[in-house]
């Protein structure tokens, strides 16, 4: 407890306001601005797409037609109709199939990677899952067009291979990695003592996983599925290229459909700024934003709920 190195007290007031003090305050303000930026951007996104789309909502917008009519004919000269039901059905069918593919595969993969293996196998599988997540959506679309399309035509003997099946499988593969990693996080959040207690009772690794870990991680798994849905719902380029992009209320997985996101991507470039069509596309954007916002918010609340319990 020697005080030999202590500075002479009298010369230094505890609240000296030298350059260091001002720099410190300036940085505090600067990083605060950075911290707030996320809020600013989320609000900004909503404000700006609403600003562009508002003219449609207050103008030719007809609530019943917009949500309940399957006719999306914005370029019709006589009577343009703006019904997004078919587009919504397209997005929903593709997302639904994607979840049928992604949920079992990603949860099984998370169980295997998180609970049933270790060491090198685990590292390699994790890297491969990460690579799966990294493949850009336009490349998935290209694969849908040039590899899966002929495959579907040959295997199922149908005329067109660009349909719900094609884009659903692709979206499933795109959503699976993020679901796998969130599910794995959920497994990791289960306290090790739970597993030890079960193992002490003589349970095998699989019994521990099935009877203890999965029930304990159930909310995290739900959040994983929700975020996967959000991801598939908002995917654009892959659906645009692999779904066939024709307006349809699908009755089978071999029907071509058109998604909400793909419609914006395909048509926005050809509309005049400020036209009804342009504003209608931004209105679709508002709908998409609100839906994904709700999905993400729910997922976050579910995850937060699990953390609080611990």
């Amino acid at each position, binding site marked *: 407890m020697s005080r030999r190195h202590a500075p002479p007290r009298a010369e230094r007031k505890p609240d000296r306001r030298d350059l260091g003090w001002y720099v410190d305050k300036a940085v505090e303000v600067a990083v605060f601005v950075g911290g707030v930026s996320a809020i600013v951007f989320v609000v900004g996104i909503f404000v700006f797409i609403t600003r562009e789309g508002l003219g449609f909502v207050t103008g030719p917008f007809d609530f019943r037609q917009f949500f309940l009519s399957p006719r999306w004919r914005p370029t019709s000269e006589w009577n343009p109709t703006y019904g997004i039901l078919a587009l919504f059905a397209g997005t929903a069918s593709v997302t639904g199939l994607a979840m049928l593919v992604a949920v079992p595969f990603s949860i099984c993969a998370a169980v295997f990677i998180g609970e049933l293996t270790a060491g090198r196998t685990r590292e390699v599988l994790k890297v491969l899952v990460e690579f799966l997540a990294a493949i850009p959506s336009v490349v998935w679309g290209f694969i849908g067009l040039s590899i899966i399309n002929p495959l579907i035509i040959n295997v199922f003997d149908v005329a067109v291979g660009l349909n719900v099946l094609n884009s659903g499988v692709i979206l499933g593969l795109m959503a699976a990695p993020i679901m796998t990693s969130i599910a794995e996080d959920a497994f990791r959040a289960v306290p090790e003592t739970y597993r030890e207690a079960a193992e002490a009772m003589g349970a095998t690794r699989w019994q521990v996983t099935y009877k203890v870990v999965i029930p304990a991680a159930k909310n995290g798994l739900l959040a994983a599925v929700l975020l996967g849905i959000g991801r598939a719902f908002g995917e654009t380029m892959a659906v645009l290229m692999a779904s066939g992009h024709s307006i349809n209320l699908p009755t089978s997985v071999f029907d071509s459909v058109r998604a909400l996101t793909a419609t914006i991507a395909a048509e926005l470039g050809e509309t005049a700024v400020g036209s009804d069509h342009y504003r209608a596309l931004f209105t679709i954007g508002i709908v*998409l934003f609100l839906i994904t916002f709700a999905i993400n918010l729910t997922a976050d609340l579910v995850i937060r709920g699990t953390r609080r319990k611990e």
Partner: protein
Amino acid sequence: MFSPTALNLRNRRRERWFRSLFLLTTVILVFPVVAILGTLIAKGGPILSLEFLFTEPREGMTAGGIFPALLGTVLLVTVSLLAAVPLGVAAAIYLSEYAAESRFTRVINLAIVNLAGVPSIIHALFGLGAFVLFLDLGTSILAAGLTLAIMNLPILIVATVESLQAVPKAFREACWTMGATRWQTIRMVVLPNSLTGILTGIILAVSRAAGETAPIMFTGAAFFIPVLPESVFDQTMALSLHLFVVTTQVPGVPEALPYGVALTLVGVVLAFNALAIGFRTHLRRRKKW
């Protein structure tokens, strides 16, 4: 030693069976990565050459190389990083070093989660409404780069917060005890110790930005431009959009060409990802505390 009972044997059998089943599912899930890489290399590999990478497309994009697209992607990623990295690191420093556990912090975290979940086409709409029209930047590299920056912000913030949090509290306390201000502590102790983690986040952001198509479609990337961009206010071609264009918009493209473009794009993206993974592994191994 004791001999296994019938129950032990049954459990062991079941254990093995489930393990194989789950291994199989996982392998099926990651098999596409290998299959896709294999196909792209087999079909796109032969066309890939320095000439392909560094010449301009000819004959209505049905021949020649991809240089303007490659350059455009580099420019867009650079602009997006210049905008996103300072902002993202600042936000992370605020969340990790300054913010208290409060409702306001909770709202910021919620905003980050939601920003990460916004569909890419919505980012495109925002970029068009805010940067191209409202700020009047026009369809330009700057507008598209800024749009990508906002997309990448959540990745950067999350990665940086994580690596800042990994620096032990005792390091900071030791520094404060010496009389350093908060900022001095962050600059001299916290940031140097978390640099590798932040870099990993930046590399991941590069990989993500390079692959995105929808956000740049209406904000600054063009189907085809005969000249190279001269400033950030020009439009540019981009690798991802170029792949879309040669697969869907241009008739008479030889089969190998889109495979070559796709292989280049996937190569760039996966190379950066592998680099990030390498960094992370290195970091974990070298961990001193």
